[in-house]
């Protein structure tokens, strides 16, 4: 055989057969199979070297997907042969399971169209799409059955090459890039929340609300200090392997460092301590989802309910653990409230998957935006909804149960008057700002939940 490419393909085949069959002996009756990734393009392109890195990235991403779906990887190797790049992955899974993962990647990865992932069971039998009841793959150029077009050389090679380059140019974010994007959206949400006005009782550009020791500028400094930490939380979530509950101690350490930066930026004032906890969880949850579905559409990775439920997985059981054996002397406001009234506060909200955000604030924000309200006005309306449903521990701590009841009644009144969309509603909200400030009611917990709401909204709509 003189053609080195044909020879390389045959050698690869022989190697695959030997490898697949060796799995049988290694796995002691456990099902095992072999996946082999190659480039799916005419051989002059495949062997050109231009797509070696692309093949390596897709192969690593496939290996990640396999691990993420709970399959044990027995071994993997990526090499450059005479027929172009080839990636081998042996897994402790039957051929249909591994083939499904391969087909998903071929379909969902931005570069999936450019690779073939062949599966072989441990008897050396190929397991293809047909065996999964699926149709053949589509031609890159015309979308008809690919095998026909390539066997018959239906398309002009220049046209095929152009199409391959076009697909290879599709953007793909690295894990680092995804974490930075998540962090940027979290920072944006934090800034938008700070800027929204009028926020009754809270610090905004128009007034410091019920506060004497901080203003809008304190919040801007604090947000800027937290920006890099939001990306770090996302990166920690993305890089984490295994049970999500294992992330909590890691996030807490990062959270303490973020708090130190916040206090340094604000001159010792607590602006965002609660937000570091809750936004940190959501960033980590979003990072984890993005890493698991790196190849999926950004929208799929950023479904608010999914992000919130990943965050909830991280803190499962936290209320019971944190509030068991509270030291009364050193207890925080939230801890004292749990001890006296059983209020779970932000821990409970996180543990339950942020229902106040998902069920109440986010639908209101979206309804406002689609009704044509400005971002500011839609945010204020969503904030009023939060006032009306959340047991805000900041309010309970400073103004007691009576203060909370007053806040809720006022919020209901402003919403009933039409909220920011009506003159009556706006008047009620401005009046509320004065009375809450006078009564020392500052619903900071709700403000944090508003930032989370805006974050989830941006994450689910900002298409990259």
């Amino acid at each position, binding site marked *: *055989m003189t*053609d080195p490419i*044909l020879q390389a*393909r*045959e050698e*690869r*085949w022989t190697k695959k057969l030997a490898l697949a069959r060796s799995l049988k002996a290694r796995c002691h009756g456990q099902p095992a199979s072999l996946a082999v990734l*190659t480039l*799916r393009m005419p051989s002059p392109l495949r062997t050109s070297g231009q797509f070696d890195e692309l093949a390596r990235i897709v192969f690593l991403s496939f290996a990640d997907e396999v691990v993420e779906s709970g399959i044990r990887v027995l071994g993997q190797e990526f090499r450059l042969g005479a027929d172009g790049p080839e990636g081998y992955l042996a897994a402790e899974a039957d051929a249909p399971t591994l083939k499904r993962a391969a087909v998903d990647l071929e379909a969902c990865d931005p570069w999936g169209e450019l690779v*073939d992932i*062949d599966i072989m069971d441990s008897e050396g039998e*190929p397991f293809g799409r047909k065996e999964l009841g699926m149709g*053949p793959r589509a031609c890159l150029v015309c979308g008809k*059955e*690919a*095998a*026909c077009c*390539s*066997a*018959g*050389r239906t398309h002009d090679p220049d046209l095929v090459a152009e199409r391959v380059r076009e697909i290879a140019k599709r953007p793909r974010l690295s894990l680092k890039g995804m974490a930075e994007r998540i962090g940027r959206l979290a920072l944006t949400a934090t800034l938008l929340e700070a800027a929204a006005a009028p926020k009754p009782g809270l610090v905004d550009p128009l007034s410091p609300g019920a506060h004497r020791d901080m203003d809008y500028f304190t919040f801007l400094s604090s947000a800027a200090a937290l920006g890099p930490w939001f990306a770090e939380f996302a990166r920690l979530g993305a890089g984490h392997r295994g049970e999500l509950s294992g992330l909590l101690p890691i996030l807490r350490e990062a959270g303490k460092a973020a708090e130190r930066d916040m206090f340094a930026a604000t001159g010792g004032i607590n602006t965002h301590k609660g937000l570091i906890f809750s936004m940190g969880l959501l960033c980590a949850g979003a990072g984890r989802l993005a890493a698991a579905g790196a190849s999926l559409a950004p929208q799929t990775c950023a479904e608010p309910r999914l992000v919130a439920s990943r965050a909830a997985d991280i803190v499962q059981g936290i209320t019971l653990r944190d509030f068991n054996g509270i030291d009364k002397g050193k207890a925080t406001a939230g801890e004292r409230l749990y001890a006296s009234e059983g209020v779970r506060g932000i821990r409970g909200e996180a543990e339950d998957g942020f229902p106040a955000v998902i069920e109440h604030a986010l639908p209101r924000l979206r309804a406002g935006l689609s009704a044509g309200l400005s971002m500011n006005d839609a945010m204020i309306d969503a904030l009023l909804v939060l006032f009306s449903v959340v047991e805000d521990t900041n309010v309970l701590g400073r103004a007691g149960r009576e203060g909370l009841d007053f806040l809720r009644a006022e919020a209901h009144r402003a919403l009933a008057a039409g909220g920011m969309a009506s003159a009556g509603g706006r008047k009620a909200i401005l009046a509320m700002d004065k009375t809450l400030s006078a009564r020392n009611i500052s619903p900071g917990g709700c403000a944090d939940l508003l930032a989370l709401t805006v974050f989830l909204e941006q994450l689910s709509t900002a298409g990259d």
Partner: protein
Amino acid sequence: MEAKKTATAGSLESSDVLVTISPAAGSAVELKIESIVIKQFGKRIRSVTEEVVAASGTKGVSVHVQDRGALECTLRARLETAIARAAEPA
């Protein structure tokens, strides 16, 4: 040429073909053709196979072609290699 043993060439990867040649009783040439593009290219695959086998002068063989959408030049090369390998002493 004469087939002394069973020999294969190629693979079952996409755009390739696995050719298996084995000795058979008598002087006939038995063809077994499978292809994922049998509808479009079945006739052509059969005629190319017949032509390459005839050109080699091989008789008394069974030829099994399992095509995965190979180019015609690939099919020819795989057939020639398999025939040559089958003719080597066992």
